[in-house]
């Protein structure tokens, strides 16, 4: 029942053996050994499994892998440069220490990357609305807000992009 599927993830083409109805999340974690996207609810309610699909932040927990087709997938692991230099959003989360347990961090970072690509200089309301798919239980929202603002201030608009156009 497994099909050989081609997936473009973090700038690299992968061939995976997977049942076509398998949600992308399970393929990323179990076939490609990625840790960024997390299982949180499997219901597209919490954002823990967020990835960028053609640059847009999308939950991966219900999306059948066969439906990804030729869309480009970027995960948390794909944000830093090959040299190890962090993406400005990642660096801002470290600077603001914007996590407690950190389980929501993937959803927050991926949402922020997509948000800043669309709105390079967002006001508070734009940040709040743009980040609302991602849930945090530790109550780190105010720090995450600060991190997004640091990232927005760190780079001119056109630099807030992933490394894999």
């Amino acid at each position, binding site marked *: *029942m497994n099909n050989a599927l081609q997936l473009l993830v973090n700038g690299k083409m992968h061939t995976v053996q997977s*049942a076509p*109805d*398998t*949600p992308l999340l*399970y393929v990323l*974690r*179990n076939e490609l*050994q*990625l*840790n*960024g996207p*997390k*299982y*949180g*609810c*499997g*219901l597209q*309610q*919490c954002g*823990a499994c967020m990835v960028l699909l053609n640059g847009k932040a999308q939950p991966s927990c219900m999306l059948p892998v066969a439906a990804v087709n030729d869309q480009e997938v970027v*995960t*948390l*692991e794909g944000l*830093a440069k090959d040299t190890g230099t*962090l993406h400005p959003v*990642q*660096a801002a*989360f*470290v600077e603001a*220490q*914007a*996590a*407690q*347990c*950190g*389980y*929501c*961090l*993937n959803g927050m*970072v991926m949402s922020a990357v997509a948000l800043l690509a669309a709105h390079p200089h967002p006001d508070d309301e734009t*940040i*709040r*609305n743009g*980040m*609302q798919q*991602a*849930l*945090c*239980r*530790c*109550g*780190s*929202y*105010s*720090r*995450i*807000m600060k991190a997004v603002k640091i990232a927005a201030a760190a780079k001119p608009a056109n630099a807030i992009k992933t490394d894999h156009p």
Partner: protein
Amino acid sequence: MHRRQFLRAAGCVTIGFTMGGPVFSYGSPVQQQLPGSLRNHPRINAWLEILDTGQVRIFTGKLELGQGIRTAIAQVAAEELDLDMQQVEVVLADTSRTPNEGYTSGSASVENSAMSVRYASAYARRKLLELAAEKWNVPIDQLHMNNGIITGPGNRSISFADLLQGRQLSDEVKLPVTLKSKEQYRWVGKPVLRDDIGRMVRGEPVYVQDLRFPGMVHARMVRPPAYGAQLRTFNEQEALKKIPGILKIVRKENFLGIITANEYEAVKAQRALQSLVTWTEGTPLPEGNVTQYIKSLPASTEKVLQKGSMDGTAPWITATYSKPYIMHASMGPSCAVAIYDKDQLHIWSHTQGVFPLRRTLSRMLNMPEEKIQITGVPGSGCYGHNGADDAAADAAVLALEYPGKHVRLQWSREEEHGWEPYGSAMIMELAAQLGPGGKISAWKYNLWSDTHSTRPAGAPQNLLAYQYMQQTPQQPERGFTAGAYRNAEPYYDIDNVTIQAHFFNGPVRVSALRGLGAYANIFAIESFMDELAAKAGTDPFTFRLMHLTDERARAVLEKLRDMIKDVPTAPGTGIGIGFSCYKNAASYCAVAALVKTNKAVTDLTVQKMWAVIDAGETINPDGLKNQTEGGMIQSASWTVQEQVRFNKQHITSVNWNSYPIFRFPQAPETEVAVIDRPNESVLGAGEAAQGPAAAAIANAVYKASGKRIRDLPLLRGQGG
């Protein structure tokens, strides 16, 4: 990252829940009493090892829960041994490696574990210097220690590892222990960054959910539709025929789990099997008003405090408050990996207590404790006793039936929401008399609560797996009852006080949730203080200060008053405050909230929250702020809109739509001020904000709307 590196790393990230320990005085840092954990495990090498690489490895019996304990512990070790932070690694709770420090709970990790590491490190420093002095035959006061190297006269220098030549320091730590003088601190009291956040942003493996082993198989549980429901029909042959990919079905009475090679096959098999089996109805839950129901239950009464007399003749002012069941609702559903191989069972779990869990599993599985190893690996934030221990027990049962393979058991969102043990619903009845000058002359307090701990501390019946494996359900052991009346005694100076706690056995599964009873007790006391202040014709700050002589309590309130004095309040908005000294013995915390609402309070936004916290000696001010900010936001979500709902059959709050918590648009801004007292004991802080935050919001709602809401959540009708 390789598995071994991760497992090591999983034992070695970082900072800052709480801080505690005996008092030192400036200038004479000689400690006269050793912390409890160190008295239980007195040898230096129980707490630290010198590695050949120049690193120092620290062992703690506590687990990182997102509170930053790893960094706080590394800071105190680096301080006493004059190391760079990079030279310290921290191994977290593991039954085979670390001291047994019970549970990571009650905001007590810095007080016990970090302080034990502090004294063990200081004693190790002394021993290392003595060894070098002996080796070079020079006086000890001519030696210096820096970044793992000891230097002495004549350009002599030697590393810790070369000095020890493969040995470890196994001396017992004995008094007196000379600690580093605080004027020389380079790490403690500084906002040292948590190194685990750097790993998180890179997507490195951090959590138990990220563990991968060669040949690992995946498991899911098939749970009953209700508490106490029993498996009525189940045909294993039919299931194996109809459902693809199943390696093994494990059934023991009402315990039903499946194992597959591929994770998504396990998810599909879980759903398919659920539709192939039938269950009995189980224990019905009460319908209707929960507060009325719990008040109607038989209760056993405990006299908590009686001082002075209740004979005053002033009129009693009364008010009754309530709090519903609320849940931990961890972001990452519980998970565990277990392997049974060569007669040994090894479990990786995000449990808060590896040692108590091992004792419990030993009884549940009839296996000697020596044959069970439990390695603590962080999960997502738990804020108390969530599904972690249950998932570990599930995985253990499954692994025993499928030996030789690592079995990874992952709970679903619905399982975590529907089966975790909740924070108990409570009712608080308050009465007070006002005497001359508008001061409180008498105080009566009655509370109703279920227990706040059913941790499986040796009691297998507190684990779901054990319950499922019985023919009939058994009553869990209701542990620590004092949790219900934590902070029931007001911290204020009142001469005549009586407090009683009435314990019922409620309808749903309950256990420890951040702050235990303190959340509801402080909500009630601090709401009532505002009500009394109005009766006495004084403002909330003045009224509280009239009843406080403890200078540190006064200081947090006075600082808070200063912080918010120029905040304008627009029509429809209001500011309220709340205060507590957590456990009446830990951190002092005063909170203010600015809310916007309408007259009927059908719409409510918490716009901003302020806190002033005094946790004694601050190990990491940023860690302390992070805990306090998060505590306020989490408490705001509980207070404004959270309530576990159920129908006759079972819990109906089973996902984020039916149990909504604050999302980004609802989260208030936060501002936290720390009052650092380097010469005072470190005080537990991780749970300090929950209660005052709740009262501050309720009091602000009253200011904004004129409506006094005494039953939580403040927004009724929310929460699905």
